[in-house]
């Protein structure tokens, strides 16, 4: 155990901090929806030049071209987070690694540079209304007609589809093959005729997602990544590189401290909430869970740095982290009592941004309470997460499968 950073990394951290200090004025606001602004693009370009974005993407595709160094990447993320300054991006964290691994040279040169510069934005066309947990059962079909695929079907949860330039999309090209073997991975512009994007309002009242409909959308057959029928494996090839993501313990820690502050400041009958033993006990219990996940995250990081497979400590991050966030939102709402239910309309019925007196943190806790439940469900429901932990990490056998008559070759 050595929780200090070696001089090399300490120096690197200083360098990042110094950069942030001297350039913070150039950074765009933390979260912005829609197409990147000119400021955002300039910021991203600056970050790439310094190696704080697109860090390991080769120079010939517009990246910084550094050797992978997980600890440095972690330091960059941590310092941008602490400074609350908008971090850079690596294009799209699914698309770009996929292209790097399996794209043609032409695809790499065409798509990666504008993507990492933020000049070309993407949305992901994976999920469908009929295929949630069972993603491989997707049914959007692409039939060959001359040199084109003709696409018909529907995708859901296509966030950013309303302003994306391009989509990377899984479609069924071989309907008679076993279900995992009939899928292809296509790239095409969102302004191709026949695409309709409809906003998908969620329980929070926001429309951050969309439904995307395809009617006779024609895409040249050359727009495929990998081979026909191999799209499932193309889409999953880069999954093993995915790190962090949902359940980030740093987020949980920062929310926890927000709750502590709230319990100091908010009063009930003039007494600060922190003086209530029952709330305090619940707070400390949550702190214990939060700390355990924080330290678990440090353990995962160490494994990653050593290029070891972290195993169980990584498998549990999403399940535990999302649950913990949800529990913290519950607690925040509870201690706020009646004030905890205040919420702006967020666009239901066309109302927006109405004035809500006494609203705390702009309704953050109710929004998180719902969003975190959405995250418990999304990206692999808690039930699917438990299957994966049981099967992949603990080695328990899979359930006997039921054959799917819609596809050839059984369910395997």
């Amino acid at each position, binding site marked *: 155990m050595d929780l200090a950073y070696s001089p090399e990394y300490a120096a690197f951290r200083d360098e990042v901090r110094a950069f942030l200090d001297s350039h913070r004025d150039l950074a765009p606001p933390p979260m912005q929806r829609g197409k990147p602004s000119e400021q955002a693009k300039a910021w991203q370009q600056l970050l790439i030049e310094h190696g704080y974005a697109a860090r390991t993407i080769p120079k010939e595709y517009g990246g910084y071209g550094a050797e992978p160094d997980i600890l440095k990447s972690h330091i960059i993320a941590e310092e941008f987070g602490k400074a609350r300054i908008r971090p850079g991006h690596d294009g799209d964290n699914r698309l770009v690694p996929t292209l790097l691994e399996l794209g043609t040279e032409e695809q790499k040169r065409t798509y990666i540079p504008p993507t990492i510069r933020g000049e070309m934005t993407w949305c992901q066309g994976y999920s469908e209304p*009929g295929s949630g947990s069972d993603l491989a059962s997707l049914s959007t079909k692409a039939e060959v007609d001359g040199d084109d695929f003709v696409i018909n079907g529907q995708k859901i949860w296509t966030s950013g589809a309303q302003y994306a330039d391009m989509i990377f999309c899984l479609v069924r090209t071989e309907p008679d093959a076993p279900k995992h073997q009939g899928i292809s991975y296509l790239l095409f512009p969102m302004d191709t005729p026949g695409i309709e994007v409809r906003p*998908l309002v969620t329980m929070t009242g926001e429309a951050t997602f969309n439904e995307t409909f395809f009617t006779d959308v024609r895409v040249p057959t050359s727009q495929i990544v990998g081979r026909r029928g191999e799209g499932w494996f193309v889409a999953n090839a880069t999954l093993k590189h995915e790190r962090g993501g949902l359940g980030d313990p740093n987020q949980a820690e920062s929310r926890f401290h927000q709750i502590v502050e709230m319990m100091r400041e908010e009063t*009930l*009958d003039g007494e600060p909430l922190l003086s209530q033993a029952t709330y305090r006990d619940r707070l400390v219990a949550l702190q214990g869970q939060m700390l355990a996940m924080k330290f678990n995250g440090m353990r995962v990081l160490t494994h990653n740095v050593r290029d070891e497979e972290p195993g169980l400590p990584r498998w549990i991050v999403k399940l535990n982290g999302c649950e913990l966030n949800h529990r913290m939102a519950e607690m925040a709402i509870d201690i706020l009592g009646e004030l905890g239910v205040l919420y702006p309309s967020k666009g239901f019925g066309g109302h927006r941004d109405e004035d809500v007196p006494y609203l705390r943190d702009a309704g953050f806790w109710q929004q998180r309470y719902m969003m975190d439940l959405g995250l418990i469900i999304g990206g692999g429901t808690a*039930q699917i997460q438990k299957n994966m932990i049981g099967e992949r990490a603990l080695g328990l056998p899979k359930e006997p499968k039921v054959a*799917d008559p819609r596809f050839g070759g059984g369910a395997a």
Partner: protein
Amino acid sequence: MEFALNEEQRMLQESVRGYLEASCPLDRVRAAADAGDTRPADLWEGLVDLGVHAILVPEEYGGVGLGHLEAALVAECLGGAVAPVPYVGSSVMAPVALALAGSDAQKDAWLPRIARGETVFGVGVTEQIGSRESGGVAAAGGTLTGKAMFVLDGADADMLLIADRDGALHIARAADADVKRLPTIDRTRSTSEVSLEATAAEVLPGSTGSRAAVLATIDAGRTMLAADTLGAAQNMLDQAIAYAKERRQFNRVIGSFQAVKHLCAEMAAALEPCRSLVWYAAHASRAIPDEARLMACHAKAHLSEVGRFVARTATEVHGGMGFTDLLGLHYWFKRIGLDRQLLGAPEIVREEAATVQGWV
């Protein structure tokens, strides 16, 4: 010994449920919520026709003089339908307080109008449970001054029933006060901030000297919020079961997966005894007065916890669809969320239950 609804109670519930199924489908709820309308005239009148507001009004004042159990059955139906109408404040707490503590003149004036649905009362007692944001109202010389927070049904009210700092209850005209809607996650009911500045008010004579009247009023409100949650949670469970029987993944309906089946079973196991608890609490309010306060606390606290569990779990069973606005499941989710926080979140109510039993 009969722990069950009688024929009249079942018929009452059937008629209210039937009416709401016909007149208040999800589209109607959505339209009202989108419009910010928490007292649509047609629904209000329909419920007047069913006699819903007359339940707790004594017969001599033009009501039907039924009990809290009948009112709870209605509350359950309203929660089940996420009906956008005033009820817990206007049609339960107000008549309970008036009947208990009003002068003859006050009863004559207001109870018949409540029963006929002509007057809607907003009820402000939050500060009797706990005051935040300097909430609290002082009475002096026939006037009220101060701020009452989270007044139930306040934005829909013609009249206000407000507790002062000592727990005495006062009637004031809504038009004389500054009533400001406090928007919450639940768009089907209104809660308001009421600001009073030497506002003319008339005290309920039976509510002074002791807190008995205001506490009984709060008890009734808590039991009704519990019943509302019961109805909303039962509806979410029913929706989840129906969805689990229909939705297919991995070539099976998802309800055949043990994980989903067990989530449904856990919801049912948690929720079913709640029905008995709500019935008992409502029944006790008149029949077993010694237990009335305690049982109202338990119903409120326990239903809040089970309601939260069911709201979350039923949403999970629906997968991504549960998280969207498409199925509208969130209207029930948020209804349960509001019920939980009004008139005391669980920890507060449990501490009151301990106090009632001499444990504090």
